[in-house]
């Protein structure tokens, strides 16, 4: 075997927030960790997403993990000894008519029936307009979670990285993985620049590139890379506390402490994962602007300053892949978060580190198995 540039207990491919959080929890438990990042940590979706921190509206399969994450976020700044920009301003999902309110009531009942220590509550028009005076008068109610909020994506990712580095984790930038070989319980990973690294465990936290890395260890997933577009406005006088979404519209809407307003809502645009290329589809952003101005009439005169999108991987069932490889012992995955993985990162880092180190996991991960039927890739599907 050729000389290697380094060896560690665990190699993590991908320096997004999941890779950074996992690195932190692993080194904290005593493992030696190296993170291979093809660009710089937080370069893609992890660093440039909308920063929503919510349990509100999550798929029931994600809720147990998401609730662990919620507890983590509250103490994250202290744990990492670094500002992560988290503020628990609450999240709302607005109903504009009786049908939508009925839908939200169903959601409330569904959540109550899960047996979790978690509720999403309905608030009526009066409370809603008291809470959000800038909201258009036609809105009649909302689903509400008081301890949801938002955080700063790049700061949070960086905080995990720095904390992991302080405990000895190594981050390699410009480290694009081109091949993985496995043998004798060891992985041998080669980079495009010729460097190579060895480890006992290998973790795929490669985001939109996660499908390609999964294929290198024999797992076949249908993963669609795509961009979720966002826009931010010029600073405005403070008018909004909670993060606002809508039952009948694609909208995510929040005002930051500096006064700028971030508008998203899952309006997608094509990406090029070979060239780190993103594009902007103005029609998608026009819909986002229309949704924002419909709920907040004062936004008509707001000026949009910047449009962008991060590169993210979407699975066909919109649930992530988290857990061991189905093909290669010692390999693990955490990718395919389908544009709602930011909030989950503290829990994924914790629980997956337990799984990798063979400890009891704080939460069952079977819903996110890599070999579930709903996300099988074209290769195995066709076979």
């Amino acid at each position: 075997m050729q000389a290697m540039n380094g060896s560690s207990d665990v190699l993590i491919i991908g320096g997004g927030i999941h890779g950074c959080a996992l690195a932190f929890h692993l080194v904290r438990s005593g493992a030696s960790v190296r993170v291979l990042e093809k660009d710089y940590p937080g370069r893609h979706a992890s660093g440039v997403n909308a920063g929503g921190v919510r349990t509100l509206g999550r798929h029931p399969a994600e809720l147990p993990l998401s609730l662990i994450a919620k507890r983590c976020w509250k103490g994250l700044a202290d744990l990492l000894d670094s500002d992560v920009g988290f503020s628990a301003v609450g999240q709302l999902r607005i109903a504009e008519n009786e049908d939508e309110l009925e839908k939200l009531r169903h959601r409330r009942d569904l959540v109550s029936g899960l047996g979790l220590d978690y509720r999403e509550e309905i608030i009526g028009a009066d409370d809603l307009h008291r809470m959000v005076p800038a909201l258009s008068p036609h809105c009649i109610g909302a689903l509400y979670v008081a301890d949801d909020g938002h955080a700063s994506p790049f700061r949070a990712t960086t905080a995990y990285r720095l904390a992991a580095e302080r405990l000895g984790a190594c981050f390699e930038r410009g480290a694009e993985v081109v091949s993985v070989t496995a043998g004798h319980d060891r992985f041998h990973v080669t980079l495009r620049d010729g460097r190579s690294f060895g480890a006992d465990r290998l973790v795929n936290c490669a985001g939109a590139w996660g499908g390609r890395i999964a294929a290198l260890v024999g797992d076949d997933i249908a993963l669609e890379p795509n961009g979720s577009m966002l826009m931010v406005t010029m600073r405005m006088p403070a008018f909004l506390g909670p993060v606002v979404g809508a039952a009948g519209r694609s909208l995510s809407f929040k005002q930051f402490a500096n006064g700028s307003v971030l508008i998203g809502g899952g309006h997608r645009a094509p990406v090029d994962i070979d060239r780190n290329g993103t594009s902007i589809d103005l029609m998608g952003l026009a819909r986002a602007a229309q949704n924002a101005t419909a709920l907040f009439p004062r936004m008509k005169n707001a000026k949009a300053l910047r449009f962008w999108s991060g590169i993210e991987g979407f699975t066909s069932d919109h649930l992530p892949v988290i857990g061991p490889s189905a093909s290669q012992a010692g390999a693990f995955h955490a990718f395919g978060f389908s544009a709602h993985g930011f909030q989950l990162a503290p829990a994924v880092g914790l629980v997956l580190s337990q799984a990798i180190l063979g400890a009891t996991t704080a939460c069952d991960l079977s819903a996110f198995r890599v070999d579930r039927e709903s996300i099988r890739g074209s290769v195995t599907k066709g076979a």
Partner: protein
Amino acid sequence: MGHYDLIIVGAGPAGMAAAVKAGACGLRVLILDEQARPGGQIYRNVEILAPHLRQALGEDYSRGEDATRALQNSLVEYRPNATVLHLDQGRSIVWSQHDGLHSASAKRFILSTGALERPFPIDGWTLPGVMTVGAAQIALKSGGAAADNAVLAGSGPLLWLVASQYLRLGLKPRAVLDTAPPENYVQALRQWRGAVAGRELLLKGWHLQREVRASGTPVYRNVSDLWASGKRRLESVGFRTHTGWHRLDAVSHLFLHQGLVPNDQLAAIAGCERHWNSRQLSWQVITDPYGRTSIPSIFVAGDAMWIAGADSAALTGQVAAVCVASDLGHLPADLYALELERLMKSVQEQARIRAFLDILFRPPRWAVVPREEETVICRCEDVQMKHLDDYLSAGGDDINEFKSATRCGMGPCQGRLCAPTVAAILADRGQLPGGKARPPRPRPPASPVSLDQLAALSGDGCRQ
């Protein structure tokens, strides 16, 4: 959505010349311009300005009227008050007018978006009362209030031009501080061919300097380590010359200038590749000799390509137009070759002059790399020199990562006022060129757009 052979962005010298040329070749041309009248920054309002102001601005300014008249008399479709927001994949363009957003597609684009003043980040440059020499000149061209008793500091032709224009209006500067280091003169002489070619221009510059000195305005040479201070607004200006430290008190206005950099924001948003130009100390769109970018349907022309002044801009505008006409089959091969040869001869002559001027007016190190750790680099987000120092000493080398980490360049100006400084500092630290540093990634829109204009693009179909 309209369809054109060619869409030109910017109706300055390059854009106007390109439009007239392409129109004469029979192309269907649209020219979009942000201002109410053609002329760009250099000939701003030349068609309508009051005679006494025109006189003060000088002959070179009035000459712009020939170009604006040629544009107005052509068959080209000219849209003033049009702010371009996005140029997508080199195929379609979206712009904003007061009545809403418009879009059009074209087979070719020429981006003649001109230049921006290089930021001159001295200590105190963000105080009210400190502005750029270019902004001080715009005040004249807009017939607006110009300041008496101002201090002008920096180097470059515009500094002396504006000082003399102010004098002609009876507005005597308090002082002119010339920051060009003496070694620039020595090094520039090595480009003596450029000096000979540009002798007329040099003579003009010499006359301007003589005009300023003859007025009794104090002129300080070899100025360095300039600072500005004041409680709520500018009060004092300090600097060093070979005789020692100087301090001017009770200063109301300080006009700064350290030359120009290409305004290539739209080209960058469109995805045109850029590299570092060490001679002009700026990012530059990568082009072939005729202005064609890495996206074959997009050309840049004029100062947006590289800083070479109005005469050169009119030439490079025509070069791009001739290439587009040939691309689209509107110019026979022999005529194309002839035209191109004739134009490129003049372009190269201008380039020789520019090589001389670039060295003569090269900003001294202290003017682009702040010495004080608290000097502001990004005024929108209050990012200071020490933040960049910290980032670089931690091993960072990526402008975009620095932006994400500190918000440098994320404010209302979208990096126009900090990107050249950050790049110049990286160049100073050996990260450019040849180092790992990549150009910043500016994002659309190229100018802020109101949400109601944006929303109107999508019609009614937004409800799920």
